[in-house]
């Protein structure tokens, strides 16, 4: 890894000031993606700003919302009885990210800022229509994700928390790569009184996306049968050594039907 200057500010304003004035400065959250990237010399930051002392971890549950601080670890979300009660699909999703030791360090804010096209959290954020709060504004999930590794965040802008509306029912199922445990296809289904939202991760070349054909069918009839005959086009889906685009297109239907059946 190339060397860098390390900063560990205790105030958000100090962190954003350092990050805002230097295009080559990078924020460090849990580091479970960023440190491997540094080790491979794929990134050469001048300054690494550790967000650990900004007081950004914690979970707040109300009858209608779940708010998770940006530095909250996957393990904390997975182990939260309150999250599991309010949004079962979200707690289950967190329990399947990486492995146990990765979940002890990796954070929701880091995952969302990175927006890996195979990451799990973007599926929950988009399907639940969460709001991403930063040091300067609130961003709706529909505006936040802008393609593979690309988000609405500006240089130096830091996610502080994510607020999820509590759905009537939810579930997340992923077909994981057995080595990396990233999603080859992951489907999050969120049922609200106003309709159903479906988000798919791991499949598309442009990152997480909403499956509007499934949403329309499930909003009328929330059963696996309702989407059994809806084919997902393979256009724009990833083809790699793990799965072809056609295979991923098929998996989207399989995982979505299983997710509907498992929703609670």
């Amino acid at each position, binding site marked *: 890894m190339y060397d860098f200057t390390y900063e560990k500010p205790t105030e958000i304003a100090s962190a954003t000031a350092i990050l805002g004035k230097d295009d080559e400065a990078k924020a460090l959250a849990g580091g479970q993606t960023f440190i491997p990237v540094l080790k491979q010399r794929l990134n050469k930051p001048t300054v690494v700003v550790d967000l650990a002392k900004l007081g950004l971890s914690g979970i707040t549950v109300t009858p209608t919302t779940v708010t998770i601080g940006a530095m909250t670890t996957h393990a904390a979300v997975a182990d939260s009885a309150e999250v599991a009660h309010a949004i079962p699909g979200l707690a289950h999703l967190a329990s399947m990210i990486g492995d*146990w*030791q*990765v979940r002890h360090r990796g954070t929701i804010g880091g995952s969302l800022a990175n927006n890996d096209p195979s990451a799990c959290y973007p599926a929950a954020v988009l399907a639940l229509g969460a709001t991403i709060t930063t040091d300067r504004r609130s961003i709706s999930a529909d505006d936040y994700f802008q393609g593979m590794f690309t988000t609405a965040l500006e240089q130096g802008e830091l996610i502080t928390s994510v607020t999820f509306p509590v759905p009537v029912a939810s579930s997340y199922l992923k077909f994981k790569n057995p080595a990396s445990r990233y999603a080859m296809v992951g489907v999050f289904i969120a049922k609200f009184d106003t309709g159903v939202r479906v988000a798919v991760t791991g499949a598309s070349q442009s990152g997480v996306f909403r499956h509007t054909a499934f949403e329309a069918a499930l909003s009328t009839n929330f059963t696996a049968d309702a989407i059994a005959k809806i084919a997902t086009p393979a256009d724009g889906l990833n083809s790699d050594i793990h799965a072809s685009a056609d295979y991923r297109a098929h998996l989207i239907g399989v995982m979505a039907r299983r997710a509907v059946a498992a929703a609670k």
Partner: protein
Amino acid sequence: MPHVTLTVNGKSHTVDVEARTLLVELLREKLALTGTHVGCDTSQCGACVVHVDGTSVKSCTMLAVQADGADVLTIEGLAAADGTLHPMQEAFREHHALQCGFCTPGMVMSAIDLVMSHPQGLTEAEIRHGLEGNLCRCTGYHNIVKAIAAAWPVMHGRELVAAE
């Protein structure tokens, strides 16, 4: 050069490190605690697992500077001063849960966290799921799982009732 002050196996150390130094490099190269191994170097194999403030983490995927002020426990800190093995080490020995031994330090550290964080009990499936971040290429895991189940009642001082 940044200073890092941390407690390792009950002993306080202050070390000068480059910011890019990994925690495992600090342990092995600065403190000569070479029981913690580096296997894959890509956050997958778990040979480098240590406890930081009581929680198992991959020390190859954490900067030494991030551990400033932390309490770190490595494989060297488990046995008593008179050489008596920790119950998990003893269970690994008794159940032949190692062959080449390369993955063993990380396995033992993960296993101790797994047992301590499951005071209500552990099923075989939970043990196998809990080891997903540790790779062993010799044993096929079977005896490792047996050893962890055997260590649970010793560490908690009561019988492990299988819930499966």
